[in-house]
């Protein structure tokens, strides 16, 4: 008989806890922070998906909405929930998990606090914005162009979303800074470096949207000032609007650069190439907003062209990324004995959803990027501007390349955070979900591109323009889009099912996959972490691109606009 000391039961309890936490990658509180973001993101995906499929059916002429719901109301909900809420919550949840993993395995108390405060502010903003949209008080689309005036609370909600994301960003910066302080001679982990670049870009970019919302929209929507300068608000919006799309993309790049090599069993091709491409993306993501305003008055052609040139600089890090990813795949295949030019392809783990979904995202990014080059060319933009082509374009970039990468991340992130193991059945369901998504997107985005070239406008409810022959000719494409939308909705529902089912998988340890570099880390130049240099360069480029035309807008303002509610 063993003598039990009084403290023994306590000891046993903590032992049981250790057994459980052994399966967990992180402490429970840190895992909870990431999981809260991820679950919130997928709830937004479900709601946004409902709005999306209904829109598709209306535009295809297949259904009519019950009187109280408007097409543009659904469009606003779809845009806000998908483009702003799903993405931002997922990105912050994912990057917080990677920061925790790579910077010591445990969040610093201040970072944890900032992360939760950010979550609360963003969640509050989302709820308020959604209520405004449902009450039909904010049917202004997610771009909320002045002088359409939504409820002031809609703008406040957007401000809460942005400020919340800043707090999360500060939490990540703090973790990174403290790690560097305690590891002065070491190169920072690649994941953490990339997360810092992403949040830095986000912080600099959101200054524009914060400025227009706080200085222009909120006072004007409350009636404290009479008019708003429309061109200034549009310019500030698009100063933010293009880096927004890179904010969606960079976390997907983190997965491609850092996670995927580990999942296939290979190595990261080059640490310094990866860091350099992120720094170039930081530099050339912001001073480029005019390429969204090519068709607008009030901006001289020469400034539009300068920003077009800066936009195309992004081709450089994109080529570097494509090169290093496929170099990593090929090196791995050859190490397994692959022969011939493309023999390495069959050594990749095609049946693993954690690889398959993001890889399909990468492949789709090739045509998606080519479409982007067309959009940003100042003459070709005239053919596609505000047509469904553009909608087709970003359903390939953000809704396929980025979304599929995020889906692929989910299949190991949720198991790692909850101390469970992905079952073969769940893996198979994941592959099926990915294929449904690809097929749905083929039927939706393909016709969007085609009918956009024919001239069918985006953001427009069902119409044949009094049976105009050209517009009637667009209808078969719109029907195909609706079919694609229905397939995609099945994909959304299956994704939600998969997430719920993953919470019931058997307990066990799932590794958080962080890739290692093929080369020695000493090869990475120290300069890459001299942030003053990079932030300085960003500021210089922004000043070159914006200072003169923006100062001109402020000095020679066009007469302002009073608010309009046209819905």
């Amino acid at each position, binding site marked *: 008989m063993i003598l039990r000391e009084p403290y023994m039961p306590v000891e046993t309890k903590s032992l049981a806890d250790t057994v459980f936490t052994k399966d967990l990658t992180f402490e429970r509180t840190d895992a909870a922070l990431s999981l809260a973001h991820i679950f919130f993101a997928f709830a937004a995906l479900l709601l946004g998906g409902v709005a999306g499929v209904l829109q598709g059916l209306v535009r295809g002429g297949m259904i009519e909405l019950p009187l109280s719901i408007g097409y543009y109301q659904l469009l606003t909900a779809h845009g806000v929930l998908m483009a702003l809420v799903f993405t931002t919550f997922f990105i912050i949840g994912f990057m917080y998990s990677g920061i925790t993993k790579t910077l010591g395995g445990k969040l610093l108390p201040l970072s944890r606090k900032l992360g939760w405060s950010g979550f609360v502010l963003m969640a509050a903003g989302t709820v308020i914005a959604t209520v405004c949209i449902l009450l039909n008080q904010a049917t202004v689309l997610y771009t909320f162009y002045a002088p359409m005036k939504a409820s002031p609370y809609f703008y406040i909600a957007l401000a809460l979303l942005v400020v919340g994301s800043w707090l999360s960003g500060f939490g990540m910066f703090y973790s990174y800074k403290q790690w560097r302080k305690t590891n002065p001679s070491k190169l920072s982990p690649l994941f953490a470096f990339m997360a810092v670049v992403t949040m830095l870009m986000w912080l600099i970019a959101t200054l524009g949207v914060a400025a227009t919302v706080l200085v222009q929209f909120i006072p004007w929507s409350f009636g404290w000032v009479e008019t708003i300068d*429309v061109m200034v608000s549009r310019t500030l919006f698009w100063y933010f609007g293009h880096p927004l799309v890179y904010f969606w993309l960079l976390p997907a790049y983190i997965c491609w650069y850092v996670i995927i090599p580990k999942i296939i069993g290979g190595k990261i091709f080059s640490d310094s190439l990866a860091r350099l491409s992120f720094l170039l993306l930081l530099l050339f993501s912001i001073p480029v907003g005019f390429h969204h305003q090519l068709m607008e*008055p009030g901006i001289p052609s020469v400034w539009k062209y300068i920003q077009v040139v800066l936009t195309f600089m992004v081709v450089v890090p994109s080529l570097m990324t494509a090169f290093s990813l496929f170099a990593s795949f090929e090196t791995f295949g050859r190490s397994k004995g692959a022969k011939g030019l493309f023999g390495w392809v069959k050594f990749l783990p095609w049946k693993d959803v954690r690889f398959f979904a993001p890889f399909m995202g990468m492949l789709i990014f090739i045509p998606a990027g080519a479409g982007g080059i067309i959009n940003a*060319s100042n003459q070709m933009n*005239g053919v596609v501007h505000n047509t469904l082509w553009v909608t087709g374009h970003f359903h390939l970039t953000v809704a396929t390349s980025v979304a599929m990468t995020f889906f692929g991340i989910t299949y190991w992130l949720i198991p790692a955070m909850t101390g469970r193991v992905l079952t073969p059945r769940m893996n198979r369901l994941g592959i099926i979900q990915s294929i449904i998504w690809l097929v749905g997107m083929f039927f939706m985005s393909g016709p969007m591109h085609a009918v956009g070239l024919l001239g069918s406008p985006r953001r*427009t409810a069902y119409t044949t323009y009094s049976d105009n022959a050209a517009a009637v000719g667009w209808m078969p494409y719109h029907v195909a889009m609706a079919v694609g939308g229905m397939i995609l909705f099945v994909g959304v529902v299956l994704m939600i099912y998969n997430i719920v089912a993953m919470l019931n998988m058997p307990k066990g340890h799932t590794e958080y996959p962080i890739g290692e570099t093929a080369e020695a880390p000493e090869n990475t130049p120290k300069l890459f972490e001299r942030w003053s240099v990079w932030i300085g360069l960003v500021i210089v480029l922004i000043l070159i691109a914006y200072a003169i035309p923006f100062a001109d807008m402020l000095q020679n303002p066009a007469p302002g606009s009073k608010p309009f509610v046209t819905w």
Partner: protein
Amino acid sequence: MWLTFGLVMLGVFLLVLGIGTFARGMAPPTSEHHHSIDPEKVMETPPFDKPGLEKIGDNEYNAYMVALAFGFNPEKMEVPAGATIHFQVTSPDVVHGFQIPGTNVNMMVVPGQVNHLSHTFKKPGEYLIICNEYCGVGHQFMATTIIVK
């Protein structure tokens, strides 16, 4: 090597865009010299007080147009085939779009600004002009036509 090839191609591409824009006059629509207007007084500011066509040369016209929720003014226009039209468009209310499907005519109409774009209509036919920027509940009905004879 591939990276160099990519960079050279990028340079060539940007050069083509630049030459197109500045040497061949294919710049996107804009108002180069501050062409602003008070959106509240569009209907009383010439030439928008009398929207319509103005013949300025041999088969060459200025078209002064107002885009408003939810239609265009004037409602119908007619020109002979081969006509060059210099569109000048503004808005008294929210932001609108101005697009003629099947052509490269596509521009934003922003209140407070007058946007400019020219096009030569070589083939006869009925051309649809639509608003391609969401402007409110009746946005999908906002259209007019130009008849080219």
